């Protein structure tokens, strides 16, 4: 059996910025419009035109850099990346090379190498069966997308598995989404993730030969693509083979990995400093503005929920990933006060409430106070948990309902054990199911569920489950 091989994964993420206009010209950004309507001499690379950087894109890049804890370069410069292709009308892409606007940073436990500004390519459409340029009847170019501002974020190879990579990519998407600088939609291509994948003997500190997986257009495909590639590399090495450096395309339909180009076919991009542009030197005011505009981001919010509110990590991350829900949760926690633990509130918000909203065709959340009242009522046993869920359904339908009045009107006030009513219902339920009673007596604990269920049906959920259990055992003399 060969030694265990550890996964080493780094990501390269392209984020299309949702600025009003393109990176170096005045054309508006668009998605899904008629081809070639958002073009001008500059983004069509007519002779003599010059690029002028989009200041809004620079501001957005600064926000991303700060959200990722990156060092911001006082003077970053653009380079030209030269290659011929019809989607690249200047035959060079203006990008950043050795001095990116955002240097080293960190998101969660994963180190960021850099984040830089560049422009997107146009879109080529190959007419014909293959959908690729080879063998196509004709190729068409839509320049609407050409010149859209992009921030490319590159991580260190710190990820150790496909699931971890997909999970981290989700955190990154949520972080960028909350900055309001991109639609971050993978299907539409406003978020594109490539993965650099290699394996090495567990415990080694050296890097193996990596392959690059291109453009997987969902987090699920990202995970599956990495899984497939890790498996391929492990099998290859297991069979005494070697991994070749190459760029791969993952086909989610077939699960196949096909080579796009090998190391030998790699381009020499002949990078050199773009002479048509001057350095980007953000002013202190621009930096301050970017700093001030940062919301509390998912990673920080998760940490705060764990440390200050005592939530477990999964629950904290679930809430922190959705800023609307997180704000609602915090408001309910405040309204509940001492009446219940934040952990209990989190369970209600992420569990019962989410289910109730979904059941009501994605209804609106109820107002904060009624939900806080309900959580308080359940916590103080004025109403059972099951009864509370019935109240919740009513709150979802009528967000401003008065919880106490609903409990009263629906007769959901929890039945206590002291007035004998519940004891009577329990006794009737035991009598009605002697077989179950016998099994319970002979030590089959699970059989108690049948009797509990009968009591709950009879009380319409008003009884407290724990109390019913206690009464059954008492009456059976256990």
């Amino acid at each position: 059996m060969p030694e265990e091989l550890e996964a080493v994964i780094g990501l390269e993420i392209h984020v299309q910025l949702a600025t009003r206009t393109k990176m170096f010209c005045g054309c508006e950004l668009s998605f899904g419009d008629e081809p070639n309507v958002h073009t001008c001499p500059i983004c069509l690379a007519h002779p003599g035109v010059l690029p002028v950087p989009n200041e809004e894109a620079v501001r957005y890049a600064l926000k991303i850099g700060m959200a990722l804890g990156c060092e911001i370069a006082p003077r970053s410069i653009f380079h030209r990346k030269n290659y011929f292709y019809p989607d690249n009308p200047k035959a060079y892409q203006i990008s950043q090379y050795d001095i990116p606007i955002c240097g080293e940073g960190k998101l969660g436990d994963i180190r960021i190498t850099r984040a830089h500004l560049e422009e997107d390519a146009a879109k080529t459409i190959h007419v014909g069966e293959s959908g690729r340029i080879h063998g196509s009847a004709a190729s068409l170019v839509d320049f609407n997308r050409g010149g859209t501002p992009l921030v490319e974020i590159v991580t260190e190879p710190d990820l150790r598995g496909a699931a971890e990579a997909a999970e981290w990519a989700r955190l990154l998407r949520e972080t960028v989404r909350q900055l309001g600088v991109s639609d971050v939609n993978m299907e539409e291509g406003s978020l594109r993730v490539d993965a650099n994948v290699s394996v090495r003997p567990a415990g080694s500190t050296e890097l193996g030969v990596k392959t690059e997986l291109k453009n997987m257009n969902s987090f699920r495909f990202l995970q599956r693509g990495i899984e497939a590639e890790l498996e391929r590399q492990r099998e290859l090495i297991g069979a005494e083979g070697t991994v070749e450096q190459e760029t791969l395309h993952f086909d989610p339909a077939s699960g196949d990995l096909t080579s796009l180009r090998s190391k030998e076919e790699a381009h020499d991009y002949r990078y050199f400093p773009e002479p048509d542009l001057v350095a980007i030197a953000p002013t202190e005011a621009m930096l301050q503005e970017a700093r001030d505009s940062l919301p509390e981001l998912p990673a920080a919010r998760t940490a705060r929920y764990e440390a200050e509110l005592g939530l477990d990590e999964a629950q904290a991350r679930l809430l922190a990933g959705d800023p609307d829900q997180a704000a609602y949760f915090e408001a309910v926690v405040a309204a509940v006060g001492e009446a219940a633990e934040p952990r209990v509130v989190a369970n209600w918000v992420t569990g019962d409430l989410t289910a109730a909203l979904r059941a009501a065709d994605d209804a609106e959340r109820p107002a904060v106070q009624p939900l806080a009242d309900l959580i308080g009522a359940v916590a103080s046993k004025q109403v059972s948990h099951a009864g509370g869920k019935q109240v919740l359904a009513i709150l979802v339908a009528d967000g401003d309902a008065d919880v106490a009045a609903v409990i009263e009107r629906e007769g959901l006030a929890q039945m206590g054990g002291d007035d004998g009513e519940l004891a009577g219902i329990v006794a009737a339920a035991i009598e009605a199911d002697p077989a179950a009673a016998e099994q319970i007596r002979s030590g089959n604990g699970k059989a108690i569920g049948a009797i509990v269920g009968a009591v709950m049906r009879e009380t319409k959920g008003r009884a407290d489950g724990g109390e019913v259990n206690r009464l059954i055992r008492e009456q059976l003399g256990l």
Partner: protein
Amino acid sequence: MAELTDLTVAEAAAKIAAGEISAEEYGAAWRAAAAADELNAYLWTAEHAESLEPDWNGDGESAPAGEGEATPYGSNAPAPAESGPLAGVPIAIKDIFTTQGIPTTAGSRILEGYRPPYTATAVRKLTAAGAHVLGKTNMDEFAMGSSNENSGYGPVLNPWDRGRVPGGSSGGSAAAVAGGLAPAALGTDTGGSIRQPASLCGIVGLKPTYGAISRFGMIAFASSLDQCGPFTRDVTDAALLLGVMQGMDQLDSTSVGIEGGIELPTREDLAGLRFGVPRELGEATLDAGVRAVFEATVARIEELGGQIVEITLPHAEHGISAYYVLAPAEASSNLARFDGVRYGLREAGDADLVEMYETTRSVGFGPEVKRRIMLGTYALSSGYYDAYYGQAQKVRTRIAQDFDAAFADVDFVITPTSPSVAFELGAKTDDPLAMYMNDFFTVPMSLAGIPAIALPAGLAAPEDGGDGAPRLPVGFQIAAPAFAEQKLLEAAHALEGALGFEAAAGDAIPWKGGARHA
């Protein structure tokens, strides 16, 4: 009364403004002169305009009326303003500037028939000041050359001697002004492409500071060096055109403009000004006649009260080497967009993509352009970048530092403009390195980004001419610190008056009529 075409631009503009002459008659006189071009100076003239439908989209097709609304980058073909400092003045434009709806080729077959969808900022500024586009002038293909023999549309002839070159790359513009085919012209200077042809044609050529005039709409050769400037008969006209064209442009991030603008120069003396002569000039390869004119001009400077100081530019001798790495490197990238996909020439359109690219560029580009694309591509290749591009950038920095050090002591640096007078057609076409040496005195200023003016300073017999060969013009170059154009123009104006080139050369000057009908 003298002919209308004898007036300088400043004189004509003043007379038109005062109602002393008719703008229509003045314009018609120049259109007729341009149409009589026998020098191959023009690729297109306003005479052709009537037969040309505007090409609004730049796709070679005329669009229906109503679709040609102004874009943010320029309205339709330069409609001149009614009034302004250049009202009624026609100006020849080097074919490297885009002019909406008017064919623009940069001297290359790869852009044959291309009609741009927008107009260059420099041209728009001229037309906004009332000027007309008189024509588009011939040039070395993509401004690569020092003789105008690299044009895809045939060489330009020197109006002083039609067996000789006018210099390059702005040879058509220089020949048009010198030959009486335009009152003034626009050119571009990357390593000497205004100053050297101005020198070889006996007129004034000004290369402003890099960033003084917008490059938007100037088809790029070497973006970090290219700068637009005027060809004129005298220094006053150069100041007039520079004043109109200079300025920061939102469409050119590297444009700065000249603080305070430019006024017409009036200075008549050089008292208190210090002129630096590079010590290295002593060893430079230089025609004897050119050296003699240079020395005589230095004497005139002293007579005008100027002080001659020896300076040193120790790295300038490496200027040509650095230039012929940097400029081709940038060019290899700038010219990659001519790929047959969107506009201009497309060959082998039915073949696959790579074959279409290769055939289009093989057919469309001339040999010098191909040579420089290959040089530049090589210089930027991984593994060679540091040795070539990186080293050349260091040399560039050193040369700029040399000038900084010199300007700490002197107001100007003076040199000859070109090592020789105009040479014969074909004399250097087989020897690219000899051709490159034409830029020896002009390249250092380009690398340093500083302004320099070429003045006609005298005449000299060509060393390659036989007995009795007509004497040809010799240029004198004055360079100044960045953005010191006003000071430069004042000094040039004073020296111009003292040199009296026009009076001395007399009827030998082609635009004065002597050689115009030769």
